[in-house]
């Protein structure tokens, strides 16, 4: 059981990571907006509003990280399926490295026994 599931996450922090999360999910295969919403929620990130994921997908597509195609749906309007582009794959790799590097720096600080003292302060 993931201990992070059920914990209330900061929506602003999640918003900053949303693009990377979506790129990672789409690296597993193409998907459409609401399916990605459910997958994000299944990860335990239930604070992410459905409405914040669709603009994030639009932004990623505009930046060239995603490609899309319309697929007719039997139950309503055509659904827009997104898939990762080559540029998106590169962005995912560099974003993952950046996140791991940041986490490597910040985690010891936040979880360590003592905070690092600034020079000159007793």
């Amino acid at each position, binding site marked *: 059981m993931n201990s992070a599931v059920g914990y209330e996450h900061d929506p602003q922090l999640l918003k900053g990571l949303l693009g990377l999360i979506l790129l990672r999910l789409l690296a597993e295969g193409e998907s*459409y907006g*609401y399916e990605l*919403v459910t997958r994000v929620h299944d990860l335990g990130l239930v604070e992410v509003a*459905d*409405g914040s994921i669709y603009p994030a997908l639009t*932004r990623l597509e505009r930046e060239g990280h995603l490609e899309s195609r319309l697929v007719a749906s039997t139950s309503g309007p055509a659904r827009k399926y997104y898939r990762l582009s080559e540029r998106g794959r590169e962005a995912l790799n560099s974003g993952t490295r950046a996140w791991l590097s940041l986490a490597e720096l910040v985690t010891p600080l936040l979880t360590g026994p003592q905070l690092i003292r600034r020079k000159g302060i007793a």
Partner: protein
Amino acid sequence: MNLTSEWTVWRINQRLRRDVPFSARRAIRRDVRANLRAAAEEVGDEEALRRFGDVTSVAEDYRAALSRPDAVRVDRGLIAGACTLLALLVLTVVRVPTFGMVTRFDAFTNEQEWHLQLWRLGELSGDITTSTLFEATVYSYSLVLFPLLAFLVWSRAWRYVVRNRQRARA
């Protein structure tokens, strides 16, 4: 798709009207409709809308993703051009009669007609012999020039030109 969902789509569209081009807004409307429908099938209309989040915030996210403040807005320019053309055409059919109240335009010279030439763009005039106090003639130059000017200003083409010049200088 119920009315509440369609109302949500409309509200997002309205909030993006000034900053996002028509074609992009159409794509957003289609996308939001399809996703709201997919969500409603799973959790019901009311819950789908609740989970969708605040419309203003969603519109703001779309605006941040799609708006280009310095971009040329062809659709806005075309509307402005069409309105200007229409105004000029209306001006050409406007005629104010004298209603028999005016017998001369100048009491001293007994002038019965007046003309005001507006360079090569048009002409304003009046003529007692045709019972016309005021009428306007718009020359073909104006019918091209003014709508074109309106298009350039409203589509923010001047910014496009400036940006290109700056790039050329750089």
